[in-house]
């Protein structure tokens, strides 16, 4: 029998690199894990599953190195296997299969921990080493069946045969061949898994042959890789495949760091183990975005976050912003980046302990201010505490707290928000303003898998929402308020122009979502052309502006024993247009479609999740009758079309439809 030896105390005298930033490259936006070993010990000894899970979750949101990710992942695995944790059961699960020409096993713990950090429970499977093609093309293989995501990764030598420098013809042929082969593999992967394919770009770690001439010398190896990556990006767009841009990661952090020749020759690891946490987070944020879990709103502090100094003390002339001071220019650069985020559809909110009049004056009167009042959907300046301000912001914007990113230079405020509102993402803001942009970029909370016209108009939408709220406060009652909006609604069957936005809405809506059924573009297209199915989209505009495409309903005509019915599998709506009776207009369009199709009833379903309690009574409100259980608890609903549906007061000035 062996007895474990007490830890020798003399070890502290050996220089210990520990968890310094060189070992957690690109993750300095996460706070350092305090007392990691102690906390792991507590998790291991703990008996209460929920407490253990809470500790694991809190640690996943810290800056863990490769070894710590491994240790934490093991505890997560133990908890999932033997422990009971309520919260664990509520976390969305994602099945990921990694098919790679190089070794990836060492990346899995970091992928799972990053998944947890991003709100997902990831189950990882790995195809046989170096057998990507066999796994996908062999009819007997079943590694990928049932995967939600299939990651395909090749090192350059495994996809691009070597050609002689200068032989441009041969180089072109191998690139074209490789791109075509990948497309065939994607299609096989999609067909066999039913999931989403993620293609990792090829890492260019070719040694330079011509020096600075490499980029120009025809047929140089790097040129072939670059051309292949370009071809992958073009084909991926067409084939609706997501891309893990390892070259962007390498550009930012260095191929010489990500790739370690010792580990390659020893174990065929293309990503060096110390950088598995960086890689894992890069992959997890794609899954987060594809699952609609990316953050939507950036909540900014003002003093020492958007400018140097305190506006209330230093005054308009005293704050540091703009040309003339290096620090002021750094704050301007941050504002420029934030403004770009707003333009791509990230909703901005301000939260500042300030006199509102003085804070607003800074935006209106400071000549070097890049952001202006209209860029903010909410402007919270008060002396109250930040957690309450964040809750007010979320409520007003109809967002969950888990849609917010809180950016504040004050470590005490950050700690308070992390502690009281753990759902809010709180990047570790660096002390130097010139590092703010990198911090926000590296945090990756705004990862997107699509960009639509609606995104670019969102800031304008939210500014209009603010004016609508002001209008509503003035109106005597809800009917006169809705009438005053002069709304026009346009209900149409899905067409190719609406496809990206409709798919995005179905996949990122969490609250007004009856069944939380996720659907990719290919499936949406298939639904739209299936004569037994209908995909209805609704756009609304009013006198404050165009809200764009804000609702999608998917129904299928089925022949049940009672006769033909229209079964509603998906019903989502943007919470921005809540309470405007848009769902009533959609219901009437569905009734028209169903009657044309010869249906005698419409069936609706509610599948409860942690976040869709809002629509529990949706079908009851629309006059459906509960099937089975009582109205309070029913999940399945039915609208009989042989009698007249319930009436409602339409606030729409015009309803246009092609149904």
């Amino acid at each position: 029998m062996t007895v474990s030896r007490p830890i020798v105390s003399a070890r502290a005298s050996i220089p210990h690199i520990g968890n310094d930033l060189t070992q957690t490259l690109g993750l300095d936006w996460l706070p350092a894990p305090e007392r990691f070993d102690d906390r792991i010990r507590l998790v291991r000894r703990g008996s209460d599953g929920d407490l253990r899970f809470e500790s694991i979750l809190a640690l996943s949101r810290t800056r863990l190195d490769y070894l710590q990710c491994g240790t934490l992942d093991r505890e997560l695995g133990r908890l999932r296997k033997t422990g009971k944790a309520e919260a664990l059961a509520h976390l969305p699960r994602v099945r990921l299969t990694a098919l790679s020409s190089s070794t990836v096993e060492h990346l899995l713990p970091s992928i799972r921990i990053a998944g947890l950090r991003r709100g997902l429970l990831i189950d990882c499977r790995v195809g046989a080493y170096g057998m990507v093609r066999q796994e996908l093309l062999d009819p007997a293989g079943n590694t990928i069946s049932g995967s939600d995501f299939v990651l395909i990764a090749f090192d350059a030598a495994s996809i691009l045969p070597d050609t002689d420098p200068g032989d441009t013809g041969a180089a072109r042929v191998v690139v074209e061949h490789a791109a075509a082969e990948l497309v065939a593999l994607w299609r096989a992967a999609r067909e066999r898994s039913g999931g989403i394919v993620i293609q990792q770009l090829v890492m260019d770690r070719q040694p330079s042959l011509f020096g600075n001439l490499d980029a120009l010398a025809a047929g140089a190896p790097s040129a072939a890789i670059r051309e292949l990556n370009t071809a992958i990006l073009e084909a991926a767009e067409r084939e609706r495949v997501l891309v893990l841009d390892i070259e962007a990661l390498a550009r930012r952090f260095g191929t010489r760091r990500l790739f370690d020749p010792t580990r390659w020759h020893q174990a065929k690891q293309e990503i060096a183990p110390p950088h598995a946490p960086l890689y894992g987070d890069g992959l997890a944020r794609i899954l987060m975005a594809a699952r609609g879990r990316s953050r939507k709103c950036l909540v900014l502090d003002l003093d020492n976050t958007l400018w140097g100094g305190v506006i209330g003390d230093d005054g308009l002339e005293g704050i540091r912003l703009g040309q003339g001071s290096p620090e002021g220019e750094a704050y301007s650069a941050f504002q420029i980046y934030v403004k770009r985020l707003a333009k791509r559809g990230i909703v901005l909110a301000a939260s500042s302990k300030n006199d509102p009049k003085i804070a607003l004056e800074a935006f209106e009167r400071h000549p070097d201010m890049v952001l202006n009042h209209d860029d903010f959907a909410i402007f919270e300046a008060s002396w109250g505490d930040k957690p309450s301000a964040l809750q007010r912001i979320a409520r007003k914007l109809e967002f969950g707290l888990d849609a917010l990113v809180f950016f504040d230079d004050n470590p005490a405020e950050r700690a308070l928000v992390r502690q009281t509102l753990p759902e809010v993402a709180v990047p570790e803001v660096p002390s130097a303003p010139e590092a703010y942009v990198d911090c926000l970029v590296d945090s990756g909370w705004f990862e997107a898998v699509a960009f639509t016209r609606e995104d670019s108009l969102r800031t304008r939408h939210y500014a209009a929402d603010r004016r609508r709220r002001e209008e509503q406060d003035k109106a005597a009652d809800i009917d006169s308020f809705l009438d005053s909006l002069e709304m026009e609604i346009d209900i149409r069957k899905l067409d190719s122009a609406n496809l990206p936005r409709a798919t995005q809405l179905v996949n990122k809506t969490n609250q007004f979502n009856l069944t939380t059924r996720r659907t990719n573009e290919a499936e949406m297209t298939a639904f739209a052309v299936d004569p037994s199915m209908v995909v209805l989209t609704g756009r609304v505009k009013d006198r404050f502006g165009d809200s764009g495409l804000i609702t999608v309903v998917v129904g299928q005509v089925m022949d049940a024993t009672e006769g033909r019915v229209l079964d509603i599998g998906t019903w989502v709506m943007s919470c921005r247009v809540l309470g405007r009776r848009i769902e009533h207009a959609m219901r009437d369009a569905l009734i028209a479609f169903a009657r044309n199709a010869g249906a005698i009833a419409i069936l609706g379903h509610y599948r409860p999740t942690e976040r869709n309690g809002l629509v529990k009574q949706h079908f009851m409100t629309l006059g459906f009758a509960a099937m089975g259980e009582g109205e309070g608890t029913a999940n399945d609903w039915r609208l009989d079309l042989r009698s007249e549906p319930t009436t409602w007061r339409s606030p729409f000035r015009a309803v246009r439809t092609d149904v």
Partner: protein
Amino acid sequence: MSEQIYAILTDIFRDVLDRDDIELRPNLTGHDIPEWDSFAHVNIIVAAEMKFGIKFMTAELERLRDIGEFVALIERKLALRG
């Protein structure tokens, strides 16, 4: 010095192999511990590199026969680093 290296390595082995009962001795090899497979081996090397702040070469890794040699190698590298 080697006492401290043994202590740190013991922690590494226990953590990587998920076995709290592991005691390291100079003539211990991969044959003695079933969990010490090629995947664990790389993790042990990486952990040692990270914890000691050193880097091993392929040739050095290939020559390792047992724990005693591993500790001696770490000791040499730490001494070289100063």
